């Protein structure tokens, strides 16, 4: 195991892997055998395998902190993976401040969310399956952040995509969930196309310039930085190409503009999933990757401008859409998209550390917000519509307080975590030399104001005002589905089917969980302890992270001066903290003032009464609908045209036509075979004449074939 110093680092990955295997293979068995105790044990194991790596990460972080800044990068090789003579991408982990920071975020926030999930998912029949996926996600995410080379990073990259897919579609009985899952996966795939191409191009550029790296580890991070300078120095165009291609990948994973629309749909998954994957960790992978590959991006100012512009646009666009959303999770989802845009603005401005800073703080407060929203949803019988909420603060005090902390943080209340990280982002962008980036910065600043408003809308509608669910009609009782008709007359020698008796027992065993719907009699109740603890635990860093990590502490940790050269400095205008603080306060004040009174009349159940702009915003400015319609209808048309038109006509057609031609020739010859002796004699005579005639002709030297 390579380096003795960090030889325990692989266990950061392996521990959740063991947890995954445990859940996958034994979870169901345990629960079937032990019942509630089995559940508890499964949940405990699931949390443990995420918490333990956190401890390892802390240890690694301290060890790194104790080393000289220049020495903080160690490759831990575990085993060969892609292992060709000319190209090796081993299973190797790169331990440096960046990866360890992410490890801490992932495992820290991850273990809290796991803990939360043990409460949130407690009643679900597929409890172990949930933790199977969750643990697998942690594995993939840790591979992503710890990966020592780009292909391995891609493994994690796709792995988290897979888990995201699985978890979005976790409640499999509804096709809508599956469709959302598919959408997430496919949008990510589009991004991956760019990522992979960027990777290829990078490889080619490196391989060309290097001629030969003895062990073929072209794409390992410890070597990339060294090689890249030579390689790209000659071809700056390549840097832009690689950077933009990689950024396409980041767009997919981090839900940036053209590819953002999977993320709101991904809210179909259970709320802990949304918190962990679609807010705190996976979606920030794009920012992480930009940090990881910063030399490439750094070499291309063009790419930087593009990234900043797209980031800013996404931030604004998503923030606007958030105003039109009524689903509590959708609001948060668009807020996530918007916040991710902020991070990209930072990266585009060259302030990679600011991006990372926001990744970390965002992980805290957005996870917190999601978990809080989860608690609300939990309390409200899985109803997610803001219009049904209101006045919840007295029922859910812990949730209320923690969510308020998160709200203030994200809104950029001065000196809270969000304010600190946003401050750096805005500073880097507005202080940047490039015009595009600077405009992006101002857009982001405006978006920060919007953020405060729509978050206040969420908080206000949820926790203040009247208890609107009281006005709901009485829910209908579920009708039990009849058992399937028995087909005893069908023989079943291979015992493929349950017999009637077995079926009855099975249906009884899977007695429906007590589904109840939201109705006027509903009484919200505070979440169990397992859910409250994570809320509290996340509220603290949401409030304080700015103090701990701000003030260039994170920057010095990730990008110590002199070790990682060329990081752009910036010259933030001195008025910025005041302006942004004011914007945040103004937004909060305006938002709360508007929404604490309850649901405004123009945002009620009747969409017709909405402001047209808000309707547009609710519909994501038609972007998603048009895109999906275009893609699915267009794709279907093309596919059907090929399948029903081209394939039978040309592919099959040529084959059939050949056959028919041969058959037709055969029929013609068949006609010639008339059965008349004299006709046969006649053909023979023709043949004689032809042969003899030809021979005599040819013998005079007249012909050749």
């Amino acid at each position: 195991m390579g380096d003795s110093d960090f030889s325990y680092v692989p266990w950061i990955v392996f521990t959740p892997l063991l947890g995954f295997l445990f859940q996958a293979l034994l979870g169901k068995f345990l629960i079937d055998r032990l019942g509630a105790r089995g559940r508890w044990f499964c949940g405990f194991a699931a949390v443990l395998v995420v918490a333990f790596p956190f401890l390892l990460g802390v240890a690694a972080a301290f060890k790194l902190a104790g080393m000289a800044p220049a020495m903080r990068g160690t490759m831990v090789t575990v085993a060969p993976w892609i292992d060709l003579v000319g190209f090796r991408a081993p299973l190797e982990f790169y331990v440096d401040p960046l990866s360890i920071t992410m490890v801490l975020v992932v495992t820290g926030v991850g273990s809290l969310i796991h803990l939360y999930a043990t409460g949130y998912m407690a009643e679900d029949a597929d409890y172990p399956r949930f933790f199977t996926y969750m643990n697998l996600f942690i594995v993939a995410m840790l591979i992503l952040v710890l990966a020592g080379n780009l292909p391995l990073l891609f493994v994690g990259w796709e792995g988290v995509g897979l888990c995201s897919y699985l978890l979005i579609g976790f409640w499999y009985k509804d096709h809508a969930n599956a469709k959302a899952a598919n959408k997430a996966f496919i949008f990510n795939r589009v991004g991956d196309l760019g990522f992979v191409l960027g990777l290829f191009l990078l490889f080619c550029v490196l391989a060309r310039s290097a001629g030969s790296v003895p062990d073929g580890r072209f794409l390992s991070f410890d070597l990339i930085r060294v090689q890249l300078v030579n390689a790209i120095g000659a071809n700056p165009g390549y840097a832009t190409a690689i950077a933009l291609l990689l950024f396409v990948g980041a767009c997919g994973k981090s839900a940036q503009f053209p590819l953002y629309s999977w993320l709101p749909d991904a809210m179909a998954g259970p709320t802990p999933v949304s918190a962990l994957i679609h807010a705190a960790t996976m979606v920030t992978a794009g920012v992480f990757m930009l940090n990881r590959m910063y030399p490439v991006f750094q070499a291309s100012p063009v790419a930087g401008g593009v990234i900043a512009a797209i980031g800013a646009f996404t931030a604004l666009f998503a923030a606007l859409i958030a105003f039109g959303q009524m689903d509590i999770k959708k609001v948060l989802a668009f807020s996530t998209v918007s916040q991710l845009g902020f991070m990209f603005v930072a990266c585009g401005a060259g302030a990679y550390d600011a991006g990372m800073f926001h990744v970390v703080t965002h992980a805290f407060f957005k996870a917190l917000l999601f978990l809080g929203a989860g608690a609300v949803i939990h309390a409200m019988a899985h109803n997610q519509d803001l219009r049904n909420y209101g006045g919840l603060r007295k029922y859910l005090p812990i949730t209320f307080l923690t969510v308020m902390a998160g709200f203030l943080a994200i809104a950029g209340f001065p000196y809270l975590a969000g304010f600190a990280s946003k401050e750096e982002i805005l500073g880097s962008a507005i202080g940047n030399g490039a015009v595009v980036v600077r405009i992006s910065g101002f857009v982001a600043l405006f978006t920060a104001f919007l953020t405060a408003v729509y978050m206040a809308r969420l908080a206000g509608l949820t926790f203040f005002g009247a208890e609107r669910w009281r006005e709901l009609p009485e829910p209908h009782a579920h009708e039990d589905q009849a058992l399937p008709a028995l087909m005893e007359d069908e023989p079943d020698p291979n015992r493929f089917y349950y017999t009637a008796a077995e079926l009855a027992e099975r249906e009884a065993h899977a007695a429906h969980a007590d589904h109840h719907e939201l109705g006027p009699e509903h009484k919200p109740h505070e979440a169990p302890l397992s859910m409250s603890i994570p809320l509290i635990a996340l509220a603290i860093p949401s409030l304080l992270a700015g103090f701990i990590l701000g003030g260039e502490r994170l920057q010095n940790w990730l990008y110590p001066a002199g070790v990682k050269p060329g990081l752009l400095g910036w010259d933030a205008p001195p008025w910025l903290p005041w302006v942004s603080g004011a914007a945040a306060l103004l937004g909060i004040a305006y938002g709360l003032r508007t929404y604490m009174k309850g649901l405004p009349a123009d945002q009620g159940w009747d969409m017709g009464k909405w402001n047209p702009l808000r309707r547009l915003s609710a519909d994501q400015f038609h972007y998603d609908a048009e895109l999906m319609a275009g893609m699915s209808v267009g794709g279907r048309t093309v596919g059907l045209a090929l399948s029903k038109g081209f394939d039978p006509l040309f592919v099959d057609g040529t084959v059939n036509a050949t056959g028919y031609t041969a058959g037709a020739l055969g029929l013609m010859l068949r006609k010639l075979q008339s059965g008349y002796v004299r006709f046969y004699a006649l053909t023979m005579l023709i043949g004689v004449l032809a042969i003899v005639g030809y021979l005599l002709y040819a013998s005079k030297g007249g012909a050749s074939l």
Partner: protein
Amino acid sequence: MGLLSLITFAPIIGALIIALIPAEHVKAIKGLAMVTAIATLGFSLFIFGQFKPGDFHFQLLESIPWIPSLGIRYQVGVDGISLWMVVMTAVLGVVATGVSLYESKRVKAFMILLLLLETTMLGTFVAVDMILFYTFFEAALLPIALLIWIWGDENRKKAAVRVFIYLFAGSILMLVGMIVLAQRTQLATGHLSFSLIDVQAAVANGKLWAGALSLEVWVFWAFALAFLIKSPAFPFHTWLVDSYTQAPTGAVLLGVLVKTGTYGLIRFCITLFPEALPRAAPAIMGLAVVGILYGGAVAAVQLDIKKLIAFSSLAHVGFIVLGAFSLSYNGLVGAVLGGVNHGFATGALFLLVGLLYLRRRSRGVNEFGGLKAQMPVFAALFLISTLAAVGLPGTNAFVGEFLSLLGTFESGIAHTVGLSVGYAVLAAAGVILAAVYMLILFQKLFYGEPKLPAIRRLRDLRGWEVALALVPTALILWGGIYPATFTGPMQASVNATRMMGMNSANQRPAWGNSAQSLDERLNLYQGAEQVAPAGVHAQGPIAAYNAARPEDGP
């Protein structure tokens, strides 16, 4: 009888014994078939153990004259390219036999044909003599056509005829091509020989095709056509759709059948026609890319599961062909690896769909739904196969497709094959399509509430079915996690193959030269030649590679 002959004819021996058992003893017949298949697998693993990875020559060679006057021999051997093909065939042989235990119609004939099919596949992969190769290559048509004809589904007759005629017509010109090769060998060396070793040796020193470029191009296309049809590449896939759709469940080996095509492309088309190769590669790669996109687009709208798998095969084969004709080292490894991977992946999918079909007698995508609740284990296994088809990292398919695409890209950047960058971009877009159609399939089968009452009565897979399905799925995962098991033995051969196709005359390695090794002439990165001309390194990369990882022996 050498080891390779043993494995090749082991299934036939089993079949002969089965032929002696009266047809009424169904259990004995099935048992014996299973034993035979497992024994074959055992032999194949033994061969795997015997194989020496660093050597690009044919190993475990056996050679007996067959038609001496024409220099045709019974000559078999394995190299790195065929080794995994053999193992794959043996593995899928077990799977195919296993799922065929459900067969109830004319069991004896079925088992005999199945084992016969396995022998022909194995023979195709181990044959070194061209005519012997052709023999096995074509002999496979008999069992395939009969299996489809007798045990297939509703349109089996058309499918069987089409498979047979199409494949037969496709490859017969190759036979003429082989003869031309042998004759040219005789011209070049004075010996008439159909042995690939001799022919390639004559190609390597440039004598074989000296001054016969147009002939070379023609013969190349005769070979390429045969293999593209068998693979099948884009416009030649109609037989595949028919046969996949109509084949009985036991015909998991169909997946191997198409591998004989891609194997042939790599074995013959790349090694024997160095001058024709760069001229033809763009066209063939173009077909491959069209196949990838076309297969994906068409698969996405299929309502028949097996048809969907067929079109997805078309797309996957596209990656293999693309990688092979990128003529880059990584691409070629990707192609060889892709062949093995896709074998396992399609094998698994075929098996699982077959198990489903056995239960419901339906292939309609829309006639299922809600299976995840009903058959969770099945769903998990199916998911793994799906992911392999999607090419997700962690499954074997990823490594192969990744390397194929990387190789294609590389060759485009290095201008080996000019259009390759475009091809790589389009092909990578094909990966998106793979996600589209496979996920839609998965969704329609597994998500939602069970629509039909009969589905609510379905049991999950039985124990031995799970065990059977675990064989390929485990290999799918293993190939994704530790691909070195697969790539390790094939590297030397792949490298040699590439140099046979790429280097100029007399610089090409020759199978015929048994003392030759590849060090010092290695030149892996196209386009890097200007910077670091071949032979500069005192220690060649392979030596360095071996020195770096001495513990990774067989």
